[in-house]
């Protein structure tokens, strides 16, 4: 073995998970190899050319706050962006951007190539080396072997993947790539594997659309980027387009359901409920006479367009017919067929919260291989796997971000605690403390951790601290500055469409009125020169203070249960009083804490009580039996 073949960390896969994992490990000082099937497909976006949206945007921000790359990569390569949910509240506002697919890949590849300690390589892994229950390296198809004590699998949808287009099925991978079959077989011998499926819509040549029948969706400019480093983005943006399916579309699909791979029985794996194919939408919601279709451009220098909403596993000739019935798409030239893909992934119960597998020490997994779906979900797991791989090598405790602190924590905890029987997607509704898990404060939540880990530069950390300080000072100023009680102020208030003040209040109190924004306060007195994101945070912190305080209290209660740690090596079957199901589940999940145990399905409040009694007897040094 030459030094050449030896790494501290090997990352298999250069998708969104693999890239973040590799970058984190390398930045934390480890000699890291990142392997990919094809160097031309680093950070590929195999489905829609878009990142962000509800819940997902917060994940991107969190990755950025920890020092990850996804946010910056989006900001640098986006073609359009919009803030969604602006009127639905501070916690759920979310950025969604359209990307130039190729630019996205190219920039990310360059970042990997120029990161010290990171070695990006083409090569297909066929086998995982395991010695005495420990990861030891990987074997490649080209005959070489690479050695390391840590392997991170981030192989996405490639494991023994199979493509379905109507009755046609073949072994293949996204974008005409090779599947990874040997590795899949190897993993089946090592870990519990399940089979999931997902699908993607057709791509069309944008010159063939009838734009007179489409409605236009413009982006927002200036736009606040994903990364806390970016600031505001002012570029010329491209529009997206919207149309709707018709009754005729639905009839074709209904009449030909038996030909869709999903319904003919050809596909057995479950698909994601939140990314249904058009056929499942029609079957499940027979009363809906039309479904929305977004047309998203794929890049500045391409004419390909993505038909969001028309994911299907119908045969090719029906795909053509379906488009004929959609206004504006009647003459669309299909460039790539829609397809469904089935692939192997891990049962996430086989993972610890650190993302290390329970069976094989030093083997970490991240991304779609863990049963999730989505670029953002993958990236978020990637950075955690990278961090914990390093922690493992250093013999340190893993970084486990609690549910109360980040969507990353919510997602990983959901996966390892509840498992999933469909590809998992983050949603804001999955979080208990949504008001706290906002886009605007992701840095406050996670940047200190990123800094401590060495993923955030001194410079950025100083900027972060300055921002926090500015926020604090301005909140304080608003709370201490009196306003009102005089006619002059009341004239202004009337103009702003809000009730007059009979006696003085503070600016903070005034800002709490729903109709008053931070900018409005500028009419009553000069506002300090502050960056837009600082103003935004200040506005949220003041306006919603009461709600946030309550959430803080709830978080405190929640974290108490999380702090009640369960011993690591317990055989739950030996604890009297636990139901058998609960004992089995507990043995499978091996929860860290009582809080986590309580979230396991099949563990009832009665079981939790038994666990409390068990902990109590343990503490007193007594035995578990009567």
């Amino acid at each position, binding site marked *: 073995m030459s030094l050449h073949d030896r790494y501290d960390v090997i990352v298999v896969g250069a998708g969104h998970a693999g890239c973040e994992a590799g970058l984190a490990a390398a930045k934390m000082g480890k000699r890291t190899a990142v392997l990919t099937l094809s160097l031309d497909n680093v950070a590929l976006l195999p489905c*829609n050319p878009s990142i962000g*949206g*509800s*819940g997902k945007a917060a994940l991107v921000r969190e990755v950025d706050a920890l020092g990850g790359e996804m946010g910056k990569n989006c900001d640098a390569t986006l073609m359009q962006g919009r803030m*969604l*949910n602006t*009127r*639905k*509240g*501070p*916690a*759920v506002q*979310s950025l*969604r951007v359209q990307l130039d697919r190729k630019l996205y890949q190219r920039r990310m590849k360059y970042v990997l190539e120029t990161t010290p300690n990171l070695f990006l390589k083409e090569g297909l892994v066929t086998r995982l080396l395991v010695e005495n229950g420990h990861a030891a390296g990987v074997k490649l198809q080209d005959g070489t072997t690479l050695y390391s004590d840590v392997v991170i699998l981030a192989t996405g949808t490639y494991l023994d993947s199979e493509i379905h287009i109507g009755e046609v099925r073949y072994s293949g991978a996204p974008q005409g790539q090779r599947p990874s079959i040997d590795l899949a077989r190897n993993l089946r011998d090592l870990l519990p594997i399940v089979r999931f499926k997902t699908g993607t*819509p057709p791509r069309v040549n944008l010159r063939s659309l009838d734009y007179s029948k489409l409605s236009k969706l413009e982006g927002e400019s200036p736009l606040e980027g994903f990364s806390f480093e970016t600031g505001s983005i002012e570029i010329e943006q491209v529009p997206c387009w919207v149309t709707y399916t018709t009754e005729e579309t639905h009839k074709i699909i209904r009449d030909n359901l038996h030909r869709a791979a999903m319904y003919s029985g050809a596909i057995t794996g479950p698909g*994601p*409920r*939140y*990314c*249904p194919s058009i056929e499942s*939408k029609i079957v*499940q*919601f027979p009363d*809906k006479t039309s*479904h*929305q279709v*977004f047309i998203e451009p794929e890049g500045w220098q391409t004419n390909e367009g993505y038909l*969001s*909403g028309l*994911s299907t596993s119908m045969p090719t000739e029906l795909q053509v017919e379906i488009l004929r019935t959609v206004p504006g798409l009647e003459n669309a030239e299909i460039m790539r067929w829609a397809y469904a893909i089935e692939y192997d992934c891990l049962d996430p119960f086989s993972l610890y919260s650190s993302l290390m597998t329970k069976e094989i020490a030093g083997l970490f997994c991240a991304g779609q291989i863990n049963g999730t779906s989505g670029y953002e979900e993958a990236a978020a797991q990637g950075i955690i796997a990278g961090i914990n791989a390093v922690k493992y090598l250093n013999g340190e405790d893993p970084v486990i971000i609690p549910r109360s602190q980040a969507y990353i924590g919510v997602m990983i905890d959901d996966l390892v605690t*509840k498992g999933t029987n469909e590809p998992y997607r983050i*949603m*804001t*509704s*999955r979080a*208990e403390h*949504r*008001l706290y898990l906002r886009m605007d404060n992701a840095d406050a939540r996670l940047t200190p951790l990123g800094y401590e880990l060495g993923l955030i530069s001194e410079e950025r950390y100083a900027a972060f601290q300055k921002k926090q300080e500015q926020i604090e000072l301005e909140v304080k100023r608003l709370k201490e500055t009196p306003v009102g009680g005089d006619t002059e102020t009341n004239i202004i208030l009337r103009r702003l469409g809000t009730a007059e003040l009979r006696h003085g209040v503070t600016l903070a109190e005034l800002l709490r009125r*729903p*109709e008053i924004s931070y900018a409005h306060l500028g009419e009553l007195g000069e506002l300090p020169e502050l960056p837009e994101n600082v103003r935004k945070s200040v506005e949220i912190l003041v306006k*919603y203070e009461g*709600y946030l305080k*309550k*959430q803080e209290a709830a978080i405190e209660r929640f974290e108490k249960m999380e702090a009640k740690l369960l011993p690591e090596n317990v055989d739950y079957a030996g604890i*009297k*009083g*636990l*139901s058998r*199901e*609960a004992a089995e589940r507990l043995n499978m999940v091996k929860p860290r804490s009582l809080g986590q145990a309580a*979230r396991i*399905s099949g563990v*009832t*409040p*009665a*079981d939790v*009580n*038994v666990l409390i009694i068990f902990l109590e007897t343990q503490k007193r040094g007594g035995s578990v039996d009567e």
Partner: protein
Amino acid sequence: MTEQTIAAIATAVGEAGIGIVRLSGKEAFDIAEKMFVTKRGDSPKSLPGYSARYGRVVDPYQGRTIDEAILLVMRGPYSYTGEDVVEFQCHGGVVVVQKILETALRLGARMAEPGEFTKRAFLNGRLDLSQAEAVIDVVRSRTEESLAVAVDQLEGSLSKRISAIREQLYDLVVRVEAIIDYPEDDIPELEVDEMAEVIRTVIGELERLIATADQGKVLREGLKAVITGKPNVGKSSLLNRLLDEQRALVTDIPGTTRDTIEEVLNLRGIPLRLIDTAGIRESDDVVERLGVERAVQLWGEADLIIHVMDGSVPLSSEDREILARTRDKLRVVVINKSDLPRVWSLDDLDARDLGEAPVVEMSLLEGELTPLVDAVVGLVSKGGIRESTASQAIVTRARHKTALEEAKADLENALETLSMGLPLDLISVGLQGALEHLGEITGETVRENIIDRIFAQFCIGK
């Protein structure tokens, strides 16, 4: 299921009309086989779960019939404890029931510890928290009335009511969440009025449930009835008469009772915690003074006050003061010693202080008790305590009441947030909070339900 088979008398001794002996555990069926002969002649051991047979309980050692009875069998895990369970239900008195139990014990069962059936049920995952607590109530219930409430709750009527309330909330929350999580899917917006209406309806229903909590408490713990009055008026005599035993010392010396005496009593189905107290007067005696203080303090805690006066001696300032100071309470006024000449009339009392309180003139020495009992029962049922017990869901646990109150507070916050024109995600905090609190009563995971329902109800995703 390695635990030994346990047996116990499941009905409180001497109270109910039927006696039940219950067995739970691996050998329950074997034991039943040896001590029960069905009328049809089939074997108890072979009976399917949830069936019943009429027949005779026999003592296999002496070959004698103990009593005629109904045998009820339930097979684990589909039984109340999650184990094999048999029950012998008979009409015999205490002696018969005891005999059945002894026979079961001799055949290998072990005497159950108090609450052990419930514990097993709970530990075998057969009961949720609310049910388990209700069962404990069954075990402890002092009267048939409260038994009925407890049984009712056991059957889940509270859970059912709460589920129905929760459904309405779920509908709303699921829409809110779908709108938030799928901003680009065309999900119909929610109108403020529509949301407010649902929230108000739910608050109303919660209020109705919360209002039953006081009744529930009364049924569970008994109505606290405090007997008060100045010394020597016959308070202790009243306690003794109602209990039909010489529980408290009665003398003609004023100040006989110096400490409180508490007894439990079933007054036509109303559980009373009857408390005799020291007579109210100024006193130099330290002990007596403490007793008086205690009595006055009890006025505050009482659900019902029975104020006894002596009609044969002149009214005193104490009489008037007590009457004035207990004005806000549910009260019955007893004018005692009607066998002696009456020296004052009702008109001598301050009508405003007397208020609506029913007045019973009687002689505790020799008169009938019926008018007094009628007055007490009438008062209690007018207070809404009795009527509603029959088949309605009643909140009997303090924990449930708290959860309901918290849910209500959350909804009120949501309503306020809504009326202030604040955004959906803030309204959602209150709505979800309310759901979680209601979930605490039955132990349901709210979050996953919401997500499942979003997908079931809305066509979302690309």
